[in-house]
């Protein structure tokens, strides 16, 4: 069995994985990098530091951070309720969590525009504001936070809480000293993934943001306008900037989660 598995890994599967990753991930990224740096570091830097680019990136970072933090709290609470609580319709709610992944982001974008746009049935118009953008981002990235934390809370595999209770700890103390530390790496990972994903969010944001340069234009939408007006190299430069930021966050979060969870 072992020999069979290692033969498969050694030849077939490993080759397939490397080819697949190259085609789907590495080659496109290499193309972006080539375009972005094709005219030298100087022009890369100037494309990235255009006032409009800086403004779009700043707005994107703030909204992504806001959405990720919101999901860190609300997503963890949702995961808690889904695993620890029992109520009618629970399994339906659990299935709905994946909806933001499955739903085309444009559909989400149009929905938010109808709900919170100029024709809002609640007379709440957040178009062109950071609030509207953050709502869209929070929706799209919710599954990351919930799904990362959920498995940790499964009681069958997590008897440490009961053990702490038999040792005299109160419910609050059990949560603070046992549950939360055990969840922390997963919470960090989920938040990091949500943030990284939010940096490039386009479809759900583009309607509600109104794309007003210097005011409500997010980075992805700025990249789109650059690319469609023929400035492909500048578009690639901003893209590479986003890519590097996403990578830094992902690596940072992974290192932190690993440090915390090292002993787990």
């Amino acid at each position, binding site marked *: 069995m072992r020999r069979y598995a290692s033969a498969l890994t050694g030849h077939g599967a490993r080759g397939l994985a490397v080819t697949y990753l190259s085609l789907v991930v590495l080659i496109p990224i290499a193309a972006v990098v080539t375009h972005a740096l094709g005219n030298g570091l100087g022009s890369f830097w100037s494309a990235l530091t255009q006032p409009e680019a800086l403004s779009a990136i700043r707005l994107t970072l703030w909204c992504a951070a806001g959405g990720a933090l919101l999901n860190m709290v609300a997503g963890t609470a949702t995961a808690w309720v889904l695993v620890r609580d029992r109520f009618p319709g629970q399994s339906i709610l659990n299935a709905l969590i994946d909806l933001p992944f499955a739903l085309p982001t444009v559909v989400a974008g149009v929905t938010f525009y109808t709900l919170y746009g100029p024709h809002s049935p609640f007379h709440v118009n957040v178009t062109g504001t950071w609030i509207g953008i953050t709502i869209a981002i929070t929706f799209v990235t919710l599954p990351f936070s919930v799904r990362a934390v959920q498995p940790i809370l499964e009681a069958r595999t997590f008897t440490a809480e009961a053990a702490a209770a038999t040792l005299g*700890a109160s419910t609050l*103390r059990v949560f603070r*000293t046992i549950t939360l530390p055990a969840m922390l790496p997963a919470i960090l990972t989920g938040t990091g993934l949500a943030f990284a994903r939010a940096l490039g969010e386009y479809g759900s944001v583009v309607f509600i943001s109104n794309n007003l340069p210097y005011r409500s234009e997010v980075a992805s939408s700025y990249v789109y306008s650059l690319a469609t007006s023929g400035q492909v190299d500048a578009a690639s430069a901003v893209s590479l900037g986003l890519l590097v930021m996403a990578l830094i966050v992902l690596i940072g979060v992974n290192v932190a989660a690993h440090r915390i969870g090292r002993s787990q």
Partner: protein
Amino acid sequence: MSIVLKNITKHFGPDLVLDEVSDEIPSGSMTALLGPSGSGKSTLLRIIAGLESLDHGTVELHGRDVTSVEARHRQIGFCFQDYAPFNQMTVFDNVAYGLKVRRIGTAQRKKEVDELLGLVRLSDFGDRYPRQLSGGQRQRMALARALAIKPEVLLLDEPFAALDAQVSGELRVWVRSLQRELGITTILVTHNQSEAMEVADRIVILHEGRIEQVGPPDQVYDKPSSDFVHGFLGPLTTWRGVAYRPHDLQLCDVDAGPRARVVDVIRLGFEVRVVVESDQETTWVQLTHHEARQLNPVVGSWVSVRPR
């Protein structure tokens, strides 16, 4: 501290898991709750600890009704089957947890934890994390952690099930002597009859949520009160329609009684298993190595079988 269980009944949804279970566990005893999986033994243990609710019935500790007392106020040491380590804490902090909850000062805490680590032979492992321990070491850490709160009752849920045979064997002997030394009333849940026989001085046999029999190991083994207990406590074989333990039968010369033909001889170190076939059934006789050498059964030869 004695434990009195009265009419404990528990359903999981529509399933009856415990059906009017009553028992009195004497102070200082080592009782094994023995039964196949699904017999309700682990649920009963969790009910005693206050980790599981019950439909009706009462749990008394030393004459005090604790049925509605929360687990954290019962002062019961509980060792979980998976040891439930606090993975983000060192071994020292794991053992110190219950003392910290009780606001024992740092110096006193250190002294007590060091003693406990010595007791479970983990003195050099205080700085490690549970992940860095072997299964047996993790088990001993869990035991030290449970003992730290100076419980008057110790509950062990399948304590040796996840260990390999050799470590499990060593730990059984050690836990038994530790329990005698501390005199702490202990209940151990197991599905392994030899483990129960070896460790406990009192065995409670559970089957489908009901107590089948209670008694010292010898008694339940030699005088089983039901076919279930008889079959569950050790292997059975039939000779001329009657159920016997294989070591309660012996092989004799062919003309000493009803005939059977030897069809297989299996040597398992100390014991030798001889399979014989008569016109009625296939029977299995267990001989010691010594007996087997004297009788020297050969496959294909004719013998007779007699109860010892």
